[in-house]
């Protein structure tokens, strides 16, 4: 019997939710239709620090359609301990509590919520609220805050303290070749396309349904239950579609708190959405300064690495990232030390943003590595190979896999790196200087305990479900492909459900662990269904499968097939009818350590990439064009090459933004971000994007995660800005150590 090519893990298929997204039938949090809805508009603090003395609401309340103004003065009871506000991704400190008291901790902090029958009435009324403040001295200048940088006592979960080796200070002092400098990254805001929004449906029986823009429905569920005292069954949180988040949705944002607060107080359905300007009122990537000192001998062998970094956090929480570890892990060098500190400024707590820590610390480190290569007069790619470490050089542990060498080779070949002329300013065309640069990218291959269910009905339809999120990453498609692969069904017969706190438990989606974790859970659940199917087939008269065990069969085209005798095929429906089953439903949990993962227990697990960039810089005017990028990625097994490529393309584009455009400017006198809109906060546009080639290097790795998947959400951004910065140096001979590299820094 002729069968169509099996679609499963490794098949490049379209996003299964693509049609819904491009036709607009996919509803986002702020779009879900609910009857008799009230609209909330957030009033933000105009000062960075101090207290609210009084709120004059009279004019606002007089606006037709306005129903209520909620402030700390009239809000209903909410939880009062820090513990109650600690979310799944909590950071040590005292979490921000919206409308809790008169204290103002950052500019744009929500201090009132206006509720009205229309959004515009609420927004206008919000503009009429007069607030009297008592101001206190603030500081938003990171450079000033650096004077009081410190090592937080309580470390954030996931923080990896750097491990020193050898004597880096002495080795640096003795090194014949040295590079030392301060490397900087400007504050960046995530700015996903979809603004934060929440729609709360008040059912009237004490229960609510919340559509929220979040990376984790169950994280928000737990937070709301804790803060508002909802019994868990009276609360359901949904996020079936999320228009990007990049980490800004890892923690519950304040609009969901405010929407639920208002719904509870007014016993009505409420929607609160942020404007683009208000998207600058919360999470941002911390500002960073990294002092890097490298020593090498005359052959280009590293002898010393000194890597110290400070990132910005708020006054009320100690956000920590893994900034300084990457360089120590990635390079073979006998002497290395590192130090990581944070510095407080009067802003909201900084937050994870795509490849937190690595996008900062690996990128800046890779600029310093490039400088060292030039100092040693060694080709930058060759320099990386000379100092290549097949093991995790910081921890002394082997990797489950590290195909970075292959990534360098394949990337260099595709880029034609060998045709590069070594000297800076040596390649030009007309008025443009051409530069080629490269860098290494690195991220963690993570796995997180996740459950999933699979339900097969006798008509051959399979539904797989897991409370994970799809923030544009392709989770629906990943779950569908894994299920198709495991039970041998075509994707059209499979429905993937996610983004619902009622579904089997999954962590917040982030850290690139989503595909590996939810994929493994879906596979386990489908395997359990397979076993039930085989058992059911045993009831068929004459036992066509002859008592075959699970390892003796495979699932193909909706049939159980004997491996040894592929002509023996039992359709799923036949097996289920024989056992009098209308459906088979199984739930399974994938936890770290099962399958071959135990072998990787004491190994380091990381993704790697080799990025090559070509820039063209107008010699006189300093205008930069990134004309070519090749990103060769070693990330284990690729579930869907098509959406995987999209992930990397997105990361690279964001890396171009980090290299050239993204920066939030603060007026330190006002303590306020000033370019808080899309006109003046620049992300790359079409004209900034040229040829981007993505290569996935073959990297089988059964030990890293059950499916051999390492994850792709972050790796595309890490190092990309360094490759571009290094290419700009190669083109112009001008070394810029501060990102973004704007026109003024090149002309300086």
């Amino acid at each position, binding site marked *: 019997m002729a069968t169509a090519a099996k679609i499963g893990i490794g098949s490049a298929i379209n996003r299964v939710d693509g049609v819904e997204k491009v036709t607009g039938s996919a509803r986002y949090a702020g779009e879900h239709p609910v009857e008799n809805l009230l609209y909330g508009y957030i009033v933000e603090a105009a000062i960075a620090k101090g207290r609210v003395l009084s709120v004059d609401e009279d004019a606002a309340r007089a606006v037709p359609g306005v129903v209520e103004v909620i402030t700390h003065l009239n809000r209903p009871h909410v939880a009062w301990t820090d513990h109650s506000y600690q979310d799944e991704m909590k950071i040590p400190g005292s979490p921000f509590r919206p409308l809790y008291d008169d204290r103002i901790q950052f500019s744009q902090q929500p201090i009132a919520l206006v509720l009205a029958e229309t959004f515009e009435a609420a927004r206008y009324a919000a503009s009429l609220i007069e607030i009297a403040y008592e101001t206190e001295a603030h500081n938003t200048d990171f450079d000033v805050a650096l004077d009081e940088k410190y090592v937080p006592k309580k470390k954030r979960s996931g923080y990896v303290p750097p491990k020193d080796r050898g004597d880096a200070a002495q080795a640096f002092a003795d090194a014949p070749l040295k590079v030392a400098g301060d490397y900087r990254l400007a504050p960046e805001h995530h700015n996903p396309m979809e603004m934060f929004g929440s729609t709360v449906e008040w059912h009237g029986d004490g229960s609510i349904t919340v559509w929220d823009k979040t990376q984790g429905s169950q994280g928000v569920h737990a937070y709301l239950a804790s803060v508002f005292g909802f019994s868990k069954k009276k609360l359901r949180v949904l996020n079936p579609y999320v228009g990007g988040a990049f980490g800004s949705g890892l923690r519950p944002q304040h609009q969901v708190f405010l929407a639920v607060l208002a719904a509870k107080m007014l016993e009505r359905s409420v929607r609160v959405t942020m404007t683009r*300007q208000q998207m600058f009122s919360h999470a941002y990537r911390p500002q960073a300064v990294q002092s890097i000192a490298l020593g090498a001998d005359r052959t280009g062998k590293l002898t010393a690495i000194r890597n110290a970094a400070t990132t910005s956090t708020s006054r009320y929480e100690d956000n920590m990232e893994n900034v300084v570890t990457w360089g120590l892990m990635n390079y073979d060098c006998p002497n290395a030390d590192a130090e990581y500190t944070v510095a407080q400024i009067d802003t909201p707590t900084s937050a994870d943003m795509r490849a937190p820590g690595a996008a900062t610390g690996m990128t800046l480190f890779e600029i310093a590595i490039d400088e060292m290569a030039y100092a040693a007069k060694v080709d930058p790619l060759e320099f990386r190979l000379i100092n290549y470490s097949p093991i995790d050089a910081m921890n002394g542990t082997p990797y489950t896999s590290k195909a970075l060498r292959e990534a360098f080779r394949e990337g260099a070949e595709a880029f034609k790196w060998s045709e590069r002329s070594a000297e800076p300013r040596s390649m030009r065309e007309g008025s443009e200087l051409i530069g080629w640069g490269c860098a290494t990218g690195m991220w963690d291959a993570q796995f997180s305990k996740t459950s999933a269910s699979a339900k097969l009905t006798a008509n051959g339809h399979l539904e797989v479900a897991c409370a994970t999120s799809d923030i544009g990453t392709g989770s629906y498609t990943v779950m569908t492909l894994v299920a198709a692969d495991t039970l041998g069904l075509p994707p059209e017969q499979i429905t993937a459900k996610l983004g619902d706190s009622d579904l089997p438990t999954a962590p917040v989606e982030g850290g690139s662990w989503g595909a590996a974790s939810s994929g493994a859970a879906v596979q386990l659940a489908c395997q359990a269904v397979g076993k039930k199917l085989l058992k059911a087939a045993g009831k068929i008269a004459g036992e066509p499968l002859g008592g075959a065990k699970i390892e003796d069969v495979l699932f193909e085209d909706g049939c159980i097939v004997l491996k040894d005798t592929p002509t023996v095929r039992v359709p799923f429906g036949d097996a289920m009818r024989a056992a009098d089953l209308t459906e088979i439903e199984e739930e399974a949990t994938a936890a770290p350590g099962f399958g071959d993962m135990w072998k990787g227990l004491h190994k380091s697990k990381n993704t790697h990439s080799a990025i090559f960039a070509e820039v063209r810089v107008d010699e006189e*005017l300093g205008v930069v064009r990134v004309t070519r990028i090749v990103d060769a990625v070693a990330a284990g097994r690729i579930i869907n090459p098509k959406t995987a490529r999209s992930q990397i393309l997105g990361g690279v584009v964001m890396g171009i933004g980090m290299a050239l455009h993204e920066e939030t400017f603060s007026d330190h006198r006002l303590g306020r971000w000033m370019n808080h809109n899309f006109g003046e906060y620049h992300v790359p546009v079409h004209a900034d994007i040229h040829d981007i080639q993505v290569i996935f290097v073959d990297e089988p790795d059964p030990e890293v995660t059950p499916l051999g998947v390492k994850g792709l959400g972050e790796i595309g951004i890490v190092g990309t800005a360094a490759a571009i910065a290094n290419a700009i140096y190669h083109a112009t001979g001008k070394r810029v150590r501060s990102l973004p590299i704007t*026109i003024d820094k090149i002309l300086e």
Partner: protein
Amino acid sequence: MNRFDYTRPASVAEAVQAGTGEQVRYLAGGTNLIDLMKENVDQPTTVIDINRLPLNAIEELDGGGLRLGALVPNSDTAWDARVEQRYPLLSSAILAGASPQLRNAATNGGNLNQRTRCYYFYDVATPCNKRKPGSGCGAIGGVNRIHAILGASDQCIATHPSDMCVALAVLDAIVQVTGPEGDRAIPIADYHRLPGDEPWRDNTLRPGELVTGIDLPAEDFTKNYTYLKLRDRLSYAFALVSIAVAMRIEGSTIAEARVALGGVAHKPWRSTEAEKLLKGQQPSPQTFSAFADALLAGAVGQCKNDFKIPLARKGIVRALKQAAEATPQSQTDKRIA
């Protein structure tokens, strides 16, 4: 957004009649006004929708010029065959601005009257003399990367954000307006104003006056011209510095040259006095540099925007070269010609 009265007059006369009063605004493409209203930067009591007025044609003028109707979309203007052939500088400048979607909605009259993109003007939580007279200028001593280096005052250092107007300045366009006191023709150089002590006044329109069209005199700047825009990304960003050049070369000498700068002042910056330095000269880097120094005479940085002065100087020299060599800047190929 505040509550406001909305009217949609059927004729220009009716519009002008309705247009008197303090907080009255004419609404055309709305690409700027609506944003300002959403952010409560502007709170008109009456919005007069002029989109149905018969001001949406491009017409021939006696003597070989063109009249651009105030309501013709920027896109239609840029791609109009007559404009492309006779005023390629204007087409180029329009296409250097905003995005296709915005250009499709934005009109010629609206482009003239768009407000500054100063961060402080847009944020009602901060001081701004242009938005709220007497509240101070936040940009002075603040975040002023995008601000003026020429013609600013101690009240305001905002810039006019238009690209189109920079080309109009070079083309000596005439703005046709009508109002309660009848019709007026305002030379483009007199249309926008410097902030001085009244930064809330962007232009010299009198209360209730409505732009009806823009006249382009007959000129022949179809060969030696350019519009060079330098910005923080390659498209969809306001100019840090932009340079419009129109030149006539006879033999090997410059018979006439006009240059205007965008992104550097409260209005397109032009100096007919400085342009005399180019007249009768051979195109050369020295001549261009001398001119750049003259045009930038008195330029003052505000700290974060100090780089604009050398950037403008280099940009002017480059743009003059582009014009002299008849290699105008492409607005699609972002390589600088």
